[in-house]
């Protein structure tokens, strides 16, 4: 009896002490995160050290102030002294070069894409390899294997890639109200599209009695290219040459026919007359959204609401819809994928002796990438609320969508974190179309989203590998091809000069690019065309 009592007491005391000890430990450690509905998570840091973290990053446009509220919030939450530096994108590379050349590499470096500098510096050991961390953080795990290849150098991963939808590229869009006026159907192949474009040019589809419309809007560098599928896409490495090597669509036979098709249309006046002289903005504002052209491009995210509103003002009955991809001669049907990421975040190799700091930085990055389903993008989700600077201060909810304060007020951590783009589990989960307020825009964006869920997308293999020659010469080679192909469309050069053009492209370095890309693909064990 007494023994049992003693045992019982002993057991209880042991248990209590054990609980007390672990409770004590937990008191040192902040409470763990509770799934998606966030309680404020202060990370899994075992240490209380306040790290000073420097960063260099670029912005298109307004830069957040150095003393913004967002930084204070970050400092509090992560227990750091965060010192970011922002540079306008157009001057970023120069500033980055100067800063690095002077020997001061910031802890965190953000770049738009892995360019030649990224590869050189990675090889020279400027960045910290991140392989071991990829599985430790929820949002890093979500990056697909084939996407990670783009930032893998000598077998090691050197950057965390920022989210980009895989399937939401820029694809053709058409004025449905014009189709209806002329009793035409949505085109399903290039012949039909040609007829529609010519009809738009000659048959007064807006019914105003004036000869002021035409088919397809186009800007310099044959942009949009109006490829109705990966088969014709100049960027897609889809076709093979006579030696079985993958080649860029830019020089393929399919492209040759496409250029001929564009040349025919140009002769009919169905393409923007001075397209070779117009930049992207001009073609958008003065041609398509001014109601002169009937065919252009669109995408779920990133269309300009001001322009769309202008179109509505000029043509209140405008109706838009995406043109679904055409079936190719080889039976394939679908557009190409994007690289699957946009923007990369690197850590300085100097941090390798400071694992605590590395951990803290990765937590900051991971936190910014958290995904919030549409219903949780408001104050009910504490993390979302924090990230956006608290409702009423950093953002407000208008008609169910989030309206953020301008970046230059710096009221939200989102303005400052190295990566504040949430990594969505699927493209549609983003719900981009719902963020627009202009009804026409909302509608067509939703149509695009729907279309992308219903079609296939070709995974472009060139995004998985790095070719030195390509990085060095791509702009020169592309410029050459654009120039020649523009002349062909204008009729100044016959399309029969195609082979000569390809030969010259090859001798300028194109052959080397083909070789390097194919060799690299073999190395990573590329198995063949993938469609998503």
């Amino acid at each position, binding site marked *: 009896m007494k023994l049992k009592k003693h045992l019982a007491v002993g057991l209880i005391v042991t248990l209590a002490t054990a609980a007390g000890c672990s409770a004590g430990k937990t008191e040192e450690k902040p409470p763990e995160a509770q799934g998606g509905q966030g309680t404020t998570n202060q990370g899994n840091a075992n240490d209380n050290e306040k790290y000073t973290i420097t960063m260099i990053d670029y*912005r*298109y*446009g*307004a*830069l*957040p*102030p*150095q003393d913004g509220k967002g930084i204070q919030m970050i400092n509090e939450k992560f227990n750091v002294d965060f010192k970011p*530096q*922002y*540079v*306008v*994108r*157009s*001057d970023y590379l*120069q*500033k980055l*070069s*100067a800063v690095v*050349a*002077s020997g001061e590499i910031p802890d965190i470096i953000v770049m738009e894409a892995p360019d030649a500098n990224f590869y050189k510096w990675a090889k020279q050991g400027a960045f910290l390899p991140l392989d071991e961390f990829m599985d430790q953080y929820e949002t890093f795990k979500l990056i697909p294997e084939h996407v990670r290849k783009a930032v893998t150098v000598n077998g090691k991963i050197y950057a965390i890639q*920022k989210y*980009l*939808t895989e399937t*939401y*590229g*820029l694809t053709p869009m058409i004025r449905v109200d014009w189709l209806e006026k002329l009793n035409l159907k949505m085109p399903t192949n290039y012949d039909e599209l040609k007829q529609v474009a010519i009809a738009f040019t000659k048959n007064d589809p807006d019914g105003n009695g004036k000869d002021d419309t035409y088919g397809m809007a186009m800007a310099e560098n044959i942009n949009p290219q109006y490829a109705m599928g990966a088969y014709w896409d100049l960027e897609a490495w889809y076709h093979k040459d006579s030696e079985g090597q993958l080649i860029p669509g830019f020089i393929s036979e399919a492209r040759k026919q496409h250029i001929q098709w564009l040349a025919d249309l140009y002769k009919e006046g169905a393409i923007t007359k001075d397209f070779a002289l117009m930049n*992207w*903005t001009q073609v*958008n*504002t*003065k041609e398509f*959204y*001014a109601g002169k052209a009937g065919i252009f491009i669109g*995408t779920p*995210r*990133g*269309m*300009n*609401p*001001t*322009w769309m509103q*202008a179109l509505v*003002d*000029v043509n209140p009955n405008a109706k838009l819809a995406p043109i679904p991809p055409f079936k190719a001669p080889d039976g394939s049907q679908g557009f190409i994928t*994007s690289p699957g990421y*946009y*923007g990369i975040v690197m850590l300085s190799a100097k941090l390798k002796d400071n694992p605590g700091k590395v951990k803290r930085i990765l937590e900051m990055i991971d936190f910014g990438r958290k995904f919030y389903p549409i219903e949780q993008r408001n104050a009910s989700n504490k993390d979302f609320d924090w990230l956006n600077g608290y409702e009423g201060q950093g953002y407000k909810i208008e008609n169910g969508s989030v*309206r*953020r304060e*301008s*970046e*230059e*007020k710096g009221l939200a951590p989102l303005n400052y974190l190295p990566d504040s*783009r949430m990594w969505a589990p699927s493209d549609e989960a983003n719900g981009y179309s719902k*963020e627009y*307020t202009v009804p026409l825009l909302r509608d067509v964006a939703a149509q695009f989203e729907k279309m992308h869920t219903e079609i296939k997308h070709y995974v472009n293999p060139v995004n998985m590998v790095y070719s030195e020659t390509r990085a060095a010469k791509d702009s020169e080679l592309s410029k050459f091809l654009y120039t020649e192909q523009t002349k062909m469309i204008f009729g100044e050069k016959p399309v029969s000069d195609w082979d000569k053009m390809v030969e010259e492209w090859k001798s300028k370095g194109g052959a080397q690019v083909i070789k390097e890309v194919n060799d690299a693909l073999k190395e990573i064990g590329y198995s063949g065309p993938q469609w998503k």
Partner: protein
Amino acid sequence: MMWERTISSRIFDAINIALLALTALVMLLPFVYVIAVSFSSYTEFMRSEFMLIPKKWVLDAYEFIFVSDSFVRSLIVTVEITVLGTFVNLAFTATLAYVLSRPVIGQRIVLFLVLFTMLFSAGMIPTYLVVKATGLLNSIWAVILPVAIAPFNLIVMRQFFTTIPGELHEAAYIDGANDWQTFWKIVLPLSKPALAAFGLFYAVGHWNNYFSAILYLNDPAQWPIQVILRQIVVVNEAQTTLANGQILLEHAPPAETIQMAAIIVATAPILVVYPFLQKHFAKGVMLGSIKG
């Protein structure tokens, strides 16, 4: 004879005035276009090819610019930089230019070395390293000292100084003045046109500068106006070229109207200052300086 001269003289004047008027018109029109676009609504801008007078005057583009706090602050910063910078410029340039206009020892060599820097420059990165080594990073001096003298201005200003008649120097020497006093009391007052011209060049240079500010100054609070304006213009460009991955900017007027407003805002202050300098370009500065 007098009569003939008067007629031919008058014809000369008439043609002169007419030609200049024509020239002024040709140079003015595009500027009127810029002003017109800056005050136009985006719909009108999108629909018109070329306009000189907007149908509807709107202040959207200007509002967009002036609303940002950083803009007003940058305006103050720019004035500081311009005033301080131009003063430093003239001090360094005028002194050395004067020295090199006199038969001083080493004159030719130094002139050649100055010319040499006009033709050869090591570029951004080495200069950055030197600026860093001299401890100027993140201070206003980083955008002032490294450009204290523009070799072109130095060489031409020096040439202006050489046109000052030798008799003046001799007269001063006889009166017991040393070089410093001659410079300060005689040469400088006679060089007002040159100082006005080069002061204007330097001032405009500071006013329009953005790159060295981006390079040497990390704190946006220290940035001059052109940097802020560049941000404004770039953000609109980005919207158009990068459909993916960018945060939507709702309610922003299209790039062109803002760009034009930015140009007007950046240019207007100079237009205001210029008339005050013009009087120095009037004739007869040397009048009365040489006796007899």
